[in-house]
């Protein structure tokens, strides 16, 4: 497979493949971070997570169109605006969904599964009715397209770099929020022992709502980032939801670090195997390994020891 290439060509191929792996890693991190907060910290199974991501993507599409029509001079920077808008819109919708539906179902995980599955179907049909069943193309500004020429042979796609930067920023922001802020302390208190947390005056209902909204907001940012690399259509969310749950469960539902580690593991395994085998086989083998490990260690890679 590798004969006929100079060593510098091989080095550049490996560099690009390593980058592809890191790119996939950032995609997984972005997808899984929002769900890890909701599923991991709150125990709520949100089957509509993919649709929240697509809501972020559609927001980006609308922002792009708006800037093209009314503010063409600022089009180059519309993406940052779109990310913020995607976060806000998805967070608001998330808070609304939590208030209307989720808060009644906290001790009934199977019912939240069903209810959020129904929500995902409703959202998909809403997109179909509003935006049409076909996928929409999101225009990117010139500076975001194409590749960054590092050396003669190594080319790194710019939007891949962008996704990585966004993923890194989100991961750091979530870490700071959860582990270094007062609000984060309240969230962890509610997760570990709700009644005691309420006894010391923490508004657990408000915390729940804000946490759900945060998770959905992050999903929105992920969706905005994905308009650069994938399609935006009513059922595009379905392509992401399975991998997202896989990453979160494999990492240990309650641990954000575990999510990151599992995202890294799965993405590297998949992208390396894709390089040496065919795409479908790589997916099959990755899933087999994940299933095997989960059978031996059902709580996932990093299980938090929590006093029950």
């Amino acid at each position, binding site marked *: 497979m590798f004969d006929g290439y100079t060593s510098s060509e091989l080095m550049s191929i490996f560099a690009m493949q390593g980058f*592809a792996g890191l790119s996939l890693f950032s995609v997984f991190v972005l997808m899984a971070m929002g769900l890890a907060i909701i599923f991991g910290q709150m125990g709520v199974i949100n089957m509509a997570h993919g649709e929240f991501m697509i809501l972020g993507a559609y927001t980006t599409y609308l922002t792009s169109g708006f800037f093209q029509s009314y503010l063409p001079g600022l089009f180059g920077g519309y993406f940052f605006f779109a990310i913020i808008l995607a976060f806000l819109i998805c967070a608001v919708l998330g808070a609304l969904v939590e208030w209307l539906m989720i808060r009644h179902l906290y001790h009934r995980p199977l019912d939240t599964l069903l209810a959020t599955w129904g929500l995902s179907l409703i959202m998909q049909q809403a997109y179909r009715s509003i935006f049409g069943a076909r996928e929409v193309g999101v225009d990117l500004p010139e500076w975001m397209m194409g590749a960054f020429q590092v050396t003669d042979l190594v080319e790194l796609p710019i939007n891949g770099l962008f996704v990585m930067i966004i993923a890194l920023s989100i991961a750091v922001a979530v870490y700071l929020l959860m582990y270094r802020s007062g609000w984060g302390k309240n969230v962890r208190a509610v997760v570990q022992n709700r009644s005691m947390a309420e006894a010391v005056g923490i508004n657990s209902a408000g915390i729940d709502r804000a946490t759900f909204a945060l998770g959905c907001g992050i999903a929105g940012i992920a969706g905005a980032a994905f308009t650069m690399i994938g399609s935006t259509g009513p059922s595009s969310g379905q*392509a992401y939801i399975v991998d997202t749950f896989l990453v979160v469960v494999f990492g240990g539902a309650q641990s954000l670090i575990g999510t990151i580690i599992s995202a890294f593991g799965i993405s590297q395994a998949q992208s390396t195997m894709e390089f040496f085998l065919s795409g479908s086989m790589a997916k099959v083998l990755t899933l087999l390994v994940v299933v095997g490990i989960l059978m031996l260690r059902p709580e996932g890679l990093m299980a938090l020891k929590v006093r029950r």
Partner: protein
Amino acid sequence: MGTTDTNASVRSPGKRLGFRKSLMTLAASVMLATSAQAATPSTADVNTTDLAVTDDTVTVGILHSITGTMAISEIGSVQAEKLAIEQINESGGVLGRQIEFVQEDGASDWPTFAEKSRKLLRQDNVAAIFGAWTSASRKAILPVIEQYNGMLYYPTFYEGLEQSPNVVYTGQEATQQILAGIDWAVKEKGAKSFYLLGSDYIWPRTSNKIARKHIDKLGLKVVGEEYYPLGHTQFNSVINKIKLKKPDVIFASVVGGSNVAFYKQMKAAGVDFTDEKPLLLTISVTEDEIRGIGGDNVEGIYASMKYFQSLDNPNNNEFVAAFKETYGDDMVIGDVTQAAYLGPWLWKAAVEKAGSFDIDKIREEFAGIEFTKAPEGYVRIHENHHLWSKTRIGQAQVDGQYKVVHETEELMEPDPFPEGYQ
């Protein structure tokens, strides 16, 4: 009182049916006698198999995905079939009857296609089904339509290796599309090495098998063959592999939403198809798909089809104008959409030649039926239920349209079971 009532109601079902039957025969003969329209053949003459035919109407079925990952591709077919039906109705209908249709959603789920086709044939008794898109959906419908003796008009280009008495294939099969495309790449572009890339289901796999055999026959090389699940969105690894292997031609049969991700990521990786290094030849990207992918992501790729919206002939100019008038100015028309448009017209021609809606009767008339008003120019039905048609190669432009760069001089004969390719 109770017993007499029950006795009265328990009349033998046979007798009651017999009474109803004779009443209907009486009504039918009255209708026959008073039918003044000599031009409209009577229902009893044209429909002896209990299809949904009345004196004024005939019912057909439309079965495509309008939800799910295939919706992006199949909606055009639905629009084309409805347009054809509307135009046929305006010109007097079929055997003097207006066409009504029942539309069902296959939802990009193959078992649903089987279930809905059964419903259309058993409950709605449709005279024809215009439907399916992926080979998987057609394979799901096949046993149902053969069991209940319906007729499916199938619009998509596909891998061949099939010839059902209950299907009319209005799209190209593999030899017409794939072999012609590869021959063009070899002859006109001097291609020597190929990388085969497709979605993971029957059509790309069989297409690549046929392509590989042909490439081997020509003494050229296949340097890679990959499949990704439908809906897959991360193509960075295969893009790196393609950069490593440096093929002359990427032969792409990626389908559905994955197309968008693939071409966007190719572009982001710095691949410029207008350089033609590598050249990308696809059999699965029509004007419909480009709408979702974006013209600047596919600029420079080549596609092997029998129809492009940019074809310049009087039939097509009329067709495109009518399509845009009905559905909007920014509509695009792909190869499958045009093939779907042919379906109702070919059915009408067969019915009028046979003078009947009965499936067995119209089947006898298929071979040799021509359609000279086809937007692609001219087609003729072959005995193997496929169409004689020309093959064209087009290059994708930034505005989402294809520029035709090559056209076969003669109509290509359909050969779903080519020797040496199975």
